[in-house]
């Protein structure tokens, strides 16, 4: 029975895939509207310069070029600046100054995409180069070039200081500690590089006054509200929210990179409002890589204090956060450094103190939560690396040290020293499972044998805790909009249903998994359930999909809405079975008279009755809405073990094995979860070994194409070995937690720890990621260990 329904725990094949594998997806760039114009963008060659003049005359002379829009044009409508998600401001188009290389300078609107590109080449911009500041440490020095002179009240590149935890107690514990370790850990700037770049089609109907924007966004409702508020403050005049429709159709990967509003969206929308014609803007690959918001870029000084016996007592972290030219981080309002203070991880310690300073530099905005819940990747890297440093200093096995310091399973809910309440966890079980699966003891013996022969092999562990599913509305909001989420379910008379959710999918498989939740709760077969999302005219209000929040929030809302429907269905069943509702029970996806399976009604039968035979006094129909405000976040966790071999000739790190034991509570669709973990592990391996965005001293990005920005392919990807433990969330209606980001967060330190472990006998205690062959080779060379 359960198998036919396809409810919780079934590997139902993804409903989305038939259209994707046939090339029938519906992405923004697939949309073609009559009379549609195309937009392309003039971008700055300089990281910092004054704009002396923009001469568009040659571009406008090209047949087919309809308009060239500059910052001065937008300024006339008070649209040259826009708010960021962190209540900073960011230029849409500059009026007289550019602050990063590849910044948007002007846009060209034309009848064809290629004519728009020709127009871009013909726009002549006269610049006066200014000295840029690229290094966040130098940005804080006196006399540094000022990135944001528009903040007249703040003549500094320092954006904010934020701290968390008990400083006095932490300092005291450090002073009393038997052992202290410290590392400077840098998590470099990286880019999400989704397969689909960003873009939109904006279409303003001058007759009805309705603006429809098909947009590559992870949060369509929030965009609608922001658009309405921004137009209200502009000279265009407010477009009321009911006249704005944001549609996020099929999206080719988001990973946090499609949460921010980019200038291109605003320019295309402004162009459509001005012309009354649809305007399409689609970035090319290099624009996406060079100008869209970036992730990480955290310079962390991490310290851990312990007793002689290895018990942790305190952690201290000081961080410089390079935000580029704007604080455009996609964080909840109250968290300038995201959830970074969850950095005490899976371990008991009495106190912690975490400080972060945000800094402006002449680079594109940073702060994208790249496949992680608001700086959790940074936090996990800090704690998982420093725990290994402690093991090294104490000369104990890193697995033993973790086992000794884990929050015990019977101590949940656990209040962390920085104030988070972990809902549930069983860390020793996950690590034990991973160790058994990988054959940890044998591997350590093999390592000792190999080391004696001069061969380099390392074993790295990461036992991370995530914090996902923002969030309780008392703490979490974005620009004031509370971070609840929603679902609306309508059951049709013949027993099929439509579900509309406030979150949105960028490949997560929501059309399948949210159908499974309804199937489980209502006993309707999953193939009879349609899931819609991403259209603000039809979906209930929601905050969107990122930070592994869909299942914790909208998944819960879907279950709650389904339960409302089931409650009503119970009354219908009582009516049809001529029984008291109290005498009915829900068994095998049916209501039956207690202990009498022959007297039962299926949901399909009850749905039919809801429209054809409902009792007097009851409203017809069978539908429900739920806005779910979670009582807490969920805390998925995992234990990862990575085994690497290092080539002494080239310095190349080869991942021989990678065992990932994840615990995301109750699972809706095991196949999708496994897919999420495989993808996440690959996206975690990428920054550990390959990816980093750097700039030269003039602020030129050095990885402007895929030739230099090394995304992993199947060639670099090892065979992942996955497994699970199940510790349900005690507060989530389904006992589920988010899983989309666990692997991205947990994998990098496992790999970094494995490499350091391979080289630890040489005195190496830390290597910054990406651990490139060159970095390893330099270490080997310094120790005379390279071989031809």
């Amino acid at each position, binding site marked *: 029975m359960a198998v036919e329904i396809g409810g919780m725990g079934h590997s139902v094949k993804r409903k989305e895939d038939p259209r994707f594998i046939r090339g029938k997806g519906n992405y923004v760039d697939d949309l073609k509207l009559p009379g549609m114009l195309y937009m392309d963008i*003039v*971008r*700055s*060659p*300089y*990281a910092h310069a004054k704009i002396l003049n923009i001469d568009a005359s040659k571009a406008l002379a090209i047949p087919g070029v309809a308009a060239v829009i500059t910052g001065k044009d937008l300024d006339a409508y008070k649209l040259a600046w826009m708010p960021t998600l962190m209540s900073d401001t960011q230029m849409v188009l500059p009026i007289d100054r550019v602050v990063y*290389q*590849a910044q948007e300078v002007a846009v060209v609107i034309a009848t064809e995409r290629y004519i728009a590109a020709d127009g*871009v*080449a013909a*726009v*002549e*911009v*006269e*610049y006066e*180069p200014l000295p840029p500041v690229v290094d966040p440490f130098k940005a804080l020095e006196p006399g540094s070039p000022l990135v944001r002179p528009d903040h007249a009240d703040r003549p500094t590149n320092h954006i904010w200081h934020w701290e968390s935890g008990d400083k006095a107690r932490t300092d005291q514990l450090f002073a009393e500690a038997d052992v202290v370790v410290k590392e400077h850990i840098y998590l470099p700037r990286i880019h999400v590089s989704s397969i689909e770049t960003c873009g939109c089609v904006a279409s303003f109907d001058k007759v009805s006054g309705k603006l429809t924007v098909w947009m590559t966004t992870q949060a369509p409702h929030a965009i609608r509200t922001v658009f309405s508020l921004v137009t209200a403050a502009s000279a265009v005049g407010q477009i009321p929210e009911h006249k704005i429709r944001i549609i996020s159709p099929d999206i080719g990967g988001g990973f946090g990179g499609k949460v921010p509003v980019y200038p291109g969206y605003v320019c295309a929308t402004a162009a459509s409002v001005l012309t009354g014609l649809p305007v399409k803007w689609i970035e090319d690959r*290099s624009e996406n890589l*060079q100008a869209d918001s970036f992730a990480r870029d955290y310079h962390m000084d991490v310290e851990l204090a312990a007793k002689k016996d290895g018990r942790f007592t305190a952690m201290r972290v000081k961080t410089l956060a390079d935000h580029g030219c704007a604080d455009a981080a996609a964080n909840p309002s109250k968290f300038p450094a995201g959830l970074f203070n969850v950095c005490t991880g899976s371990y008991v310690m009495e106190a912690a103190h975490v400080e972060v300073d945000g800094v402006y530099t002449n680079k594109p905005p940073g702060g994208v939560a790249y496949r992680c819940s608001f700086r959790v990747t940074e936090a996990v890297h800090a704690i998982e690396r420093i725990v290994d440093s402690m093991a090294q200093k104490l000369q104990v096995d890193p697995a033993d040290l973790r086992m000794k310091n884990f929050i015990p399973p019977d101590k949940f809910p656990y209040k962390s020293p920085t104030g988070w309440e972990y809902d549930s966890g069983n860390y020793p079980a996950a690590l034990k499972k991973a160790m058994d699966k990988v054959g940890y003891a044998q591997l350590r013996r093999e390592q000792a044998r190999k080391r004696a022969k001069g061969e380099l092999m390392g074993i790295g562990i990461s036992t991370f805790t995530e914090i996902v599913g923002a969030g309780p509305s008392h703490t979490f909001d974005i620009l004031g909009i509370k971070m609840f989420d929603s679902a609306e379910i309508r059951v049709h008379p013949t027993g099929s249903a439509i579900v509309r959710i406030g979150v949105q999918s960028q490949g997560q498989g929501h059309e399948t998994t949210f159908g499974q939740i309804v199937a489980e709760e209502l006993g309707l077969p999953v193939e009879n359930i349609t899931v819609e999302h991403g259209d603000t005219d039809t979906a209930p209000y929601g905050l969107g999909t990122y930070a592994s929040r869909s299942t914790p929030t909208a998944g819960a809302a879907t279950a709650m809405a389904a339960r409302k429907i089931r409650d009503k269905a119970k009354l219908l069943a009582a009516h049809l079975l001529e029984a008291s509702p109290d005498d009915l029970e829900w068994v095998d996806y049916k209501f039956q008279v207690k202990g009498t399976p022959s007297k039962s009604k299926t949901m399909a039968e009850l749905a039919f009755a809801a429209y054809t035979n409902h009792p007097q006094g009851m409203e017809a129909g069978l539908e429900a809405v739920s806005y779910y405000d979670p009582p807490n976040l969920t805390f998925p966790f995992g234990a990862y073990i990575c085994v690497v071999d290092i080539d002494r000739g080239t310095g190349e790190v080869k991942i021989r094995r990678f065992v990932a034991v994840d615990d995301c509570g109750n699972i809706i669709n095991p196949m999708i979860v496994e897919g999420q973990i495989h993808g996440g592990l690959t996206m975690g391996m990428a920054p550990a070994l390959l990816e980093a965005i750097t700039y*030269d001293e*003039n*602020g*030129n*990005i*050095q*990885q*402007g*194409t895929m*030739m*230099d920005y090394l995304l992993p392919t199947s060639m670099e990807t090892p065979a992942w070995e996955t497994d699970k433990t199940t510790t349900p969330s005690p507060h989530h209606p389904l006992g589920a937690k988010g899983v989309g980001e666990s692997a991205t967060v947990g994998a990098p330190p496992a790999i970094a720890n494995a490499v350091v472990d391979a080289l630890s006998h040489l005195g190496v205690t830390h290597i910054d990621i990406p651990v490139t062959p060159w970095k390893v080779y330099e270490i080997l060379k310094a120790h005379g260990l390279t071989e031809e």
Partner: protein
Amino acid sequence: MRFEGHETINAPIEAVWAFFMDPHRVAECAPGYQSMEVLSPTRFKPKVGVGIGVVKATFTLDVELDELREPEHVLVKAHGVAAGSAVDIHGGADMKPSSPTITEMDWTATVNVSGTLASVGARLMESTARKLTARFFECVREKVETPK
């Protein structure tokens, strides 16, 4: 990027000087030269196409000669923009005769490239610049060493 070099040109220093003071003759040797506007004897605006790897850009340069000490010393400042890219060059050349028919020339150039060309072509920039420089001087020698 900083480049420097030494060239031996088999021609009298006066001929070499005259060559470098004639923007049209120099332009003939400039790789990717398309056209030029001469504003004064020491200021001109050539248009040159540059390709680094797959990236091609047409620069309109603003070139100015300075500190001229005939026939032995000249400084060159050039600033150019192309779609998405910009270049700033500070260069200089010192010449002296090692015989009445041979000129020794020491030159330096500091080149700052910004934008697409710098970010997309970074790995190829130095080798491309060296190749173009070599081609330029080969052309110069050919033109100066063969009297018209």
